């Protein structure tokens, strides 16, 4: 009985525990403007409080020539992620995401629709693998499971 009570209480805790972050995404992005972005990385702003991934999306009346698609025009979008520090401690650096890498991103556009900015609700490679996870050499914590991965995370002092 005690176990049952505890279980349900802990379940409740998990359910009500607020997810806190640096800021409110709901104030920044518009729930009525979902976006699906398929494009290539042009730049990574590896900054706090949140990293921003720049991607170019081919579009007939795009704002400028594409960097990675010849003879085409692109719009540039900025996609908001989380703090880079946690990934740095797992050995992932700003060099882990090369310009030209193809990504699929879903999220919501900034409330100011004149801005090509969105939250990176889900950022994956074209085959659906999550960004930074499961890719040789750059993914996941360095647990030794992948022989091609960096032997030590850069954030691991002396380990």
């Amino acid at each position, binding site marked *: 009985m005690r176990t049952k009570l505890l279980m349900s209480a802990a379940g409740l805790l998990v359910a009500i525990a607020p997810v806190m972050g640096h800021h409110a995404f709901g104030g920044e992005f518009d*729930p009525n403007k979902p976006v699906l972005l398929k494009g290539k990385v042009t730049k990574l702003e590896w900054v706090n409080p949140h990293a921003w991934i720049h991607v170019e999306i081919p579009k007939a009346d795009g704002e400028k020539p594409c960097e990675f698609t010849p003879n085409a025009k692109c719009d540039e979008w900025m996609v908001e992620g989380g703090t880079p520090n946690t990934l740095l401690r797992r050995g992932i650096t700003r060099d882990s995401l090369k310009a030209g890498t193809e990504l699929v991103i879903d999220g919501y556009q900034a409330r*100011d629709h004149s801005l090509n900015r969105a939250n990176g609700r889900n950022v994956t490679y074209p085959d659906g693998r999550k960004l930074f996870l499961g890719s040789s050499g750059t993914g996941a914590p360095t647990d030794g499971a992948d022989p091609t991965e960096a032997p030590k995370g850069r954030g691991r002092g002396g380990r």
Partner: protein
Amino acid sequence: MRSLLAAHFLFVAFTAAAVAQSPRPTPRIPDGHPDLQGTYDIASMTPLERAAGTPLVMTREEAARFEKERADRVRLLALPSNGNRNAPPVGGDGSAGAAGNVGGYNNFWIDNGTAYYTIDGQKRMSVIVDPPDGRVPPLTAEARQRAASRVVSPTSDAQENDPGLEGATAYDDMERRPLGERCLLGFGSTSGPPSLPVLYNNLHQIVQTKDTVLILNEMVHDARVVRMNAEHVPKSIRKWMGDSVGHWDGDTLVVDTTNFTDKTRFRGSSENLHVVERFSRIDANTLRYRFTVEDPSTWERPWSGEEAWPATTDLLFEYACHEGNYALGNILRGARLREKTRDSKER
């Protein structure tokens, strides 16, 4: 020969017992006080408060089950998605908290602990140990009135739960936005005092000399400088993280903090907030962090919490929060646009 062998066994047994019984001596700095220096990762599944009616301590089996559930969830969230998926639903994805109905960002950015705090061999269900129910005591009438009279309350531990629909005036100028959003202090009282575990970047580094102890918090690169055996600065001087002075009580470092600003407002506190922290060694790799918070103009009684701070070989990185804080601008611009829409509807 036989007696020699027996003597040898006896010697080995005696030595082993002696080693087992005498723990490694507490490392000390040259003045003889314990050396508390190091980097500590206080990420934990243990929340500040626990649900009403639940005990402070879980069994190891219960803790193991919940810890496995957390690990399973992290694994699940790391699985591939459909590369040919569609955009998320119009009207929001129903996510709560800071994810605010738009889904926040992927879980791989998050680092909020894989285990509960273990203290004195106990798996803890809440940071709060006193009051015994593990809840922050009720606010006084004065504190409730203070909170109600404020248009907004950007506190040092704001739960940034804003679905974008907070009272309209909460966006009237940037000074009404939460301290975390403005990069003044980390969210969730990570800067302290008291230091609480948050969603990520839970590293704290202690550097110690005879006269000064520095507590460097990864977020928002806030350094607390504790002056040893000193008096507090005059009451007229107010600081975001208060004014901290320290002394030794035996092998325990006691840090006393007052002189908070009236904008810090830890869980609705006033500028009379008083925090006493006690740092001591549990073992060579772990600190015991205990704090007591009091403010008679805010809570009906003082309250205390306890955390285990395990040392880590991970490095604490710079967190230059203003550097890339596009979010605040985006949020304020969004608010201006919402006002226009609302105004045009009213007309």
